[in-house]
């Protein structure tokens, strides 16, 4: 039987505000335990929260970027449960009236655009961290992270495969980084994802019983965990069993999901409106102000790149994945005057280098200015594409310009027909048999001659010219 997976994601994005959501403490990471705390985030008796306006700005921008309705009136709620890393015994979150409702993001699935609906986006505070390691007979609590602002982005159950889920995550990350509200680092936990996964026989309308997956800390793990979970659920059903509603943890080492808690152990969070905070009213002016600060978003940029620079849709999509990369490309394209060349070099060599170094576009040691300089040399015929590979290696790993490298190493392309002709003559003289065979009709040997000429000129000969001259002389 054919099965259709039904997937919805709950993504937590940590906002890049300087201070926490309800107090003035810093959101810096890697500080000593409990160093970034105050009476408010420790939950001392009598303290009160005060909403960080920048956190509101950020969620409004996110709502605008993801086509949501930004509520003119929203409010916070308390989510009550006991845990040592939750100092107040409740988390301030949103329940009935979140800041953003509805909305969607578009992802490319099998070459076509698919819209993934959003249910809501709301603001909440992060909890602290329990520390168990290295402490004999005790656990400690670090509250530095308590009160760091989080945004929860809840999707509709619109996702139909593990790769679609990963694509959706990538898209969310791209948008959040574009509008500069979240650094999108999954490994460090500034972007976290829980997945609700169920399967149903193809064609059936009702959803199957879902499991909630947690602990997936990379795009790859999101995809793998969901893939595994889909297979696991199908196997249960095929065996005549029933999927149970539960929370499951992804174990990346074993590559499996494990049961964490069942439905009967589910908490009753006793949500109710937070009486210490007044409802937030977002005026038209506030919304307009935020709209005015919005940068061009990935989808709009992708369309514009394809149109303006005449590059393939796929290239445009890759190049707009991050704002830094898009900016990099656009600079290189404009400065070199050769947008297609620029796209080829960035899609190929630049991204390969970055991937090897595990670096982002903003960390690229080769500035778009120097890359453009090299592309200009190719365009003007000063160096060949092949020589350019050598030049690229050199300029990527140094601070030199392409002009400097070409001058230093004497890499200027030979475009003098006489000079090339001389080399061709030498090659033909050294390989009389091959010349004969060529002339007898084995024209595939042309490549051999080109290779020999290039070898003799150290790759500097203009390939087009070499081809032309060879054909003439061999004829």
């Amino acid at each position, binding site marked *: 039987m054919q099965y259709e997976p039904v997937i919805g994601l709950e993504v937590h994005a940590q906002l890049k505000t300087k201070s926490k959501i309800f107090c003035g403490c810093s959101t810096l990471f890697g500080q000593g335990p409990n160093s970034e705390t105050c*009476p408010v985030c*420790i*939950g*001392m*008796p*009598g*303290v*009160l*929260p*005060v*909403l960080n306006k920048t956190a509101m700005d950020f969620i409004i921008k996110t709502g605008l970027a993801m086509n949501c309705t930004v509520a003119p009136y929203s409010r916070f709620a*308390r989510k*009550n449960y*006991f845990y*040592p890393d939750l*100092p*107040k*015994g*409740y988390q301030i979150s949103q329940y009935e009236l979140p800041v953003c409702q509805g909305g969607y993001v578009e992802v490319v699935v099998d070459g076509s655009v698919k819209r993934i609906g959003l249910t809501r986006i709301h603001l909440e505070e992060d909890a602290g961290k329990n520390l168990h390691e290295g402490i004999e007979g005790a656990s400690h*609590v670090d509250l530095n992270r308590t009160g760091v602002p989080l945004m929860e982005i809840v999707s509709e159950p619109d996702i139909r495969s593990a790769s679609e889920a990963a694509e959706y995550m990538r898209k969310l990350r791209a948008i959040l980084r574009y509008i500069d509200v979240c650094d999108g680092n999954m490994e460090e936990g500034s972007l976290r994802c829980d997945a609700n996964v169920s399967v149903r026989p193809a064609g059936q309308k009702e959803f199957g019983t879902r499991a909630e997956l947690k602990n997936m800390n990379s795009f790859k793990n999101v995809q793998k965990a969901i893939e595994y979970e889909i297979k696991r659920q199908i196997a249960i059903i095929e065996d005549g069993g029933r999927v149970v509603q539960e929370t499951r943890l992804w174990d990346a080492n074993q590559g499996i999901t494990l049961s964490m808690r069942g439905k009967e152990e589910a908490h*009753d969070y*006793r*949500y*109710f409106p937070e*009486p*210490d*905070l*007044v409802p937030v009213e977002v005026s038209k002016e506030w919304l307009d102000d935020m709209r005015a600060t919005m940068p061009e978003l990935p989808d709009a940029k992708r369309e514009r790149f394809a149109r303006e620079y005449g590059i393939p849709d796929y290239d445009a999509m890759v190049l707009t994945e991050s704002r830094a990369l898009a900016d990099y490309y656009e600079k290189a394209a404009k400065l070199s005057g050769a947008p297609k060349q620029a796209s080829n070099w960035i899609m190929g060599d630049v991204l390969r280098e970055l991937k090897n170094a595990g670096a982002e576009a903003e960390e690229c040691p080769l500035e778009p200015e120097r890359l453009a300089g090299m592309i200009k040399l190719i365009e003007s015929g000063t160096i060949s594409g092949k020589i350019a590979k050598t030049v690229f290696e050199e300029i990527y790993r140094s601070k030199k310009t392409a002009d400097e490298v070409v001058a230093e190493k004497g890499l200027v392309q030979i475009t003098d027909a006489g000079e090339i002709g001389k080399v061709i003559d030498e090659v033909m003289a050294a390989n009389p048999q091959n010349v004969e065979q060529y002339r007898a009709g084995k024209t595939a040997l042309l490549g051999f001659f080109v290779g020999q000429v290039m070898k003799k000129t150290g790759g500097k000969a203009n390939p087009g010219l070499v081809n032309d001259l060879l054909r003439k002389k061999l004829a």
Partner: protein
Amino acid sequence: MELHSLTLHELRDLIIKREITAKDAAFAYTRRIGQVEPDVNAFLTLTPGKTIEMAEKADKILNGVQPGAGLPALLGIPIAVKDNMCTKGIKTTCASRMLENFVPPYESTVTAKLQAAGYILLGKTNMDEFAMGSSTENSAFGATKNPWDLSRIPGGSSGGSAAAVAADMCAAALGSDTGGSIRQPASCCGVVGLKPTYGRVSRYGLVAFASSLDQIGPVTKDVEDCAIMMNVIGGHDALDSTSADVALPDFTANLKDGIKGLKIGMPKEYFVEGGIDKDVYASMMEAVNVLKSLGAEIKETALPHSGYAIATYYILATSEASSNLARYDGVKYGYRAKEFDDLLDMYKRTRSEGFGPEVKRRIMLGTYALSSGYYEAYYKKAQQVRTLIKRDFDEAFRDVDIIITPTSPTPAFKLGEKTADPLQMYLSDIFTISVNLAGIPGLSLPCGMTSDNLPVGMQILGRHWGEETVLRAAYAYEQATDWHTRKPGM
């Protein structure tokens, strides 16, 4: 006349005229405390060292200013603070085992304002645990006695503050009021107590009981003192999002303008003969005559949803409390059970041992009301009724400027009389609770004595932000009578 029996404004006049020093004032009260506190038990913590230090500081300021020049409003005035307001470096226990040794690392906004105004702290006053109760019998550290009759309760939960003012152990005190906790003890002890409009006074540093109802206010010897205290503690605070950004008037400015033509409403639901103590009823009727004689116009008014106030209150207040008190879990500060098996066991034992029975009762009620499946029927419904109660007052205030009621249906009852029956205890606040639900200001002032020589209090209610009118009416009545000058024979 002894210094300790003076009102705040009388004491302040002597200090301004340099007839006494701040230290004189401080010593007058510490001596008085030494005499009567053993009988009354109004304080949980006395701060003699701090008292002297602050008095010396006040005298230094006093000596640095030319006579005739302006002084901070409370310079050299000895004041007591209810033990649910955080005072940096000074124990703040909420009369609970849970916080028996809790020393806040920060100062509440109200006490910071008192400091800025030059006050002298005498100590922290007794209360019902976490402000839950109407008799101060729910204190984990022993009940406070009513200075008028030591076998009776002083009211609650700000019983320590009211008793301390009544027994002249301070010039004034701060209390907090969630359902009547300033006004009912003020009534029981024959002093003046004001619960301001919700949002008038910052709650930052007030240990929360029910956030949407809690409000700090003064307990004083007369109405003028109350106005002076309000000038100091009122105003917007950036640290409390629910404190309103409305202009703070000078509450003493129009205090003495009289009440000629003022329209006063008497809600028919509150004046049912037989529903309240006969002496209380008689005192109220007499008060009405006094008000009429001062030129006020008395009108009957209606508050049709009054009957639902107590039920509504005990759902909303306990719901908020169940969440507000979740932080006392033994992890970070406060009491932690000595022995436990695991985390859950530590929570259970810590909270079972650290909280008293009334606090546990309310946490359970609130937890229940918020539980999934019950939320709509209880919490949601109660919020809707709260809106109706608010509307009752809005309606009433279209026709009248203030409303008067008895503060409490009975005078101070005997210690132990109602401890076995929580519902009877809850009824002590029947006239005060709807005021918190509506968020309007309410003041209690002495308006008579029962045949047992116990004080009776009259409650005056005003519109949102209408404290000036409430204080003006209270002042006019007070000046026409002498109830506020009566003292318990201690």
